[in-house]
């Protein structure tokens, strides 16, 4: 039983360089163990005894940390070739000391991580990126094969799940997407009007906003929002299934997890994201219309006419194509991150975060490629 004051004493008997006996008494317990440990160490260093004896007759309480302190002194004495013994060891103290693993005292003990150099760490980072790329490529292959199978066998697609995900990724996201697009349209129209007003070019606010929203902002804003809302949800859902061994259950029951879980999500995103993009375009333009009518002395009719004149069918179609590509990237990478989930609650969080970050990265990369390709096609 532990003693509340946790006090101890060490009485030294003998002279430096000769036989030394240490009489220990009181309580050697976890809470105070640093003090007796350093005291024993300094006695050993100062006295450099020809023989060291530790008398344990006065020990009242000794827990495993206390036993560790004694064993460490024995270990250090042996390492310095000093003959060593314990005397008056009660059976209880002996039992406690027998539980200890003396390897823990060794200087070259390698239980903890060794320090790695900067080059090694950099190499490990590149290796991780390379391995991640390989895993993503493998998943792309599996997903493509599952999609081709699903297209050839439409009845194998879990349509109920697809509709559910269309609702979750699409319909449920309408209010927030509408609000954000409206406000972005409003802000851009307002900011651009400050400049264009100076040249009396108020009407071009409508053109500027329409082109910016339909070609770039609509698809990008929608994709980022879907990545945040649905990408993380896909990864967390699949990750939790992985942690609960549900994916393994699917495999042993003969299902292809990618076809069973990922395909409905990818199909749902392919339907929902383009529709959401058109919706975002509409609300972005609406935001500009509010600024045009209230701040630029334009009529609603003039603003809408100018908007229609500025955008082409090609702009709208290219926006939709982008949206489809973004949808595949978001849902694909999110599902992949979900399937890659490790063990434990934290791993699910990591997967969800990674899904959003990777999705946004891929969206930006894909958008850059689109910008170049569309420039040459046009």
């Amino acid at each position: 039983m532990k003693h509340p004051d946790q006090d101890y004493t060490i009485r030294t008997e003998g002279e430096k360089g000769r036989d030394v006996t240490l009489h220990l008494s009181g309580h050697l317990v976890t809470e105070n163990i640093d003090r007796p440990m350093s005291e024993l160490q300094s006695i050993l260093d100062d006295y450099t005894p020809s023989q060291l004896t530790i008398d344990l007759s006065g020990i009242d309480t000794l827990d495993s940390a206390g036993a560790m302190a004694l064993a460490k002194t024995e270990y250090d004495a042996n390492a310095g070739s000093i003959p060593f013994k314990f005397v008056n060891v009660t059976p209880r103290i002996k039992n406690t000391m027998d539980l200890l693993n003396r390897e823990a005292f060794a200087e070259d003990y390698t239980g903890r991580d060794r320090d790695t150099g900067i080059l090694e760490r950099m190499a490990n980072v590149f290796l991780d990126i390379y391995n991640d790329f390989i895993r993503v490529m493998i998943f792309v292959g599996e997903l493509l094969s599952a999609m081709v199978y699903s297209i050839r066998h439409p009845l194998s697609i879990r349509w109920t799940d697809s509709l559910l995900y269309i609702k979750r990724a699409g319909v449920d996201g309408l209010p927030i997407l509408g609000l954000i697009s409206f406000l972005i349209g409003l802000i851009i129209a307002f900011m651009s009007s400050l400049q264009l007003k100076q040249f009396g070019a108020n009407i071009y606010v409508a053109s500027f906003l329409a082109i910016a929203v339909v070609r770039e902002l609509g698809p990008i804003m929608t994709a980022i929002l879907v990545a945040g809302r649905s990408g993380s949800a896909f990864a967390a859902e699949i990750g939790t299934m992985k942690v609960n061994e549900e994916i393994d259950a699917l495999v042993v029951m003969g299902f292809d997890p990618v076809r069973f879980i990922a395909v409905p999500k990818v199909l749902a995103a392919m339907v929902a994201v383009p529709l959401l993009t058109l919706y975002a375009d509409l609300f972005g333009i609406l935001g500009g219309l509010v600024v045009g009518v209230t701040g630029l002395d334009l009529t609603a009719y003039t603003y809408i006419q100018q908007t229609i004149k500025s955008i082409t069918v090609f702009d709208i179609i290219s926006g939709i194509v982008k949206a489809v590509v973004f949808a595949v990237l978001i849902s694909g990478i999110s599902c992949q991150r979900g399937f890659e989930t490790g063990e434990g609650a934290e791993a699910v969080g990591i997967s969800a975060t990674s899904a959003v970050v990777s999705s946004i990265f891929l969206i930006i990369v894909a958008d850059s490629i689109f910008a170049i390709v569309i420039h040459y096609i046009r």
Partner: protein
Amino acid sequence: MTPVVTVENLAARYGENIVFEDVSFDIFEGEIFAIVGGNGCGKTTIFKCMTGLLKPSGGRVLVRGIDPATENEEKLKTLRKETGVLFQSGALFGSMTLYDNMALVLKEYTTLPSPVIDMIIRTKLGMVRLAGCENLLPSELSGGMKKRAGIARAMVMDPVVLFLDEPSAGLDPITSEEFDILVKNINTGMGTTMIIITHQLESIFNIAHRVIMLDKDAKGIIAEGDPRELRKHSKDPRVMAFFGGGIPRHLTEHEQPEAN
């Protein structure tokens, strides 16, 4: 002999459903005390009451004189320092290495310098045969290793009382026996009082000094004593069935049905 844990007229209910009532027993210093019984008899509920995770609906539990359900934060902190708990799954923090799992407690409750904390952790892991595993994450451990790491974490402050919830569940017979030996060694070596919730008969007979058996229908204790004595001398058919390995003893001794 002063009891380390006292349970007085304990009652627990979930809504209208009474789990048990009027349960009383004492656990003494250095004892390995097992709480056994079938599913739904309230073993885990008693465990939660004793560890302060659940407030009983009646009666009280005193662990080293402190009631975990009603005491103030300061006393509870003292109690937490003097008790350790091994959960069924090990409940190691998945995001932390074994080292960090154990250092967390030492850093919270002591002012020991890092090298001493390092050494305590190494020593404790060595005691449970996990020397060198400090840097592993729980996900990198097998089921048996998780249990041993869980006990190392529970023992990191050298508690006076150790609660173990189904320690052998999910372990193979050899690992389970090794775990029993470890529990016994810790009890003998350090005099730790141990309270074990378990179903495993082998484990009960191997290590428990004393046992209580709870019953779902009786809503309380139906047997108390040395498990070996209960197996030999109990006349209660429920106790006979449980300690006879689930088959009434008259069948195990005389009238075993012939195999088809």
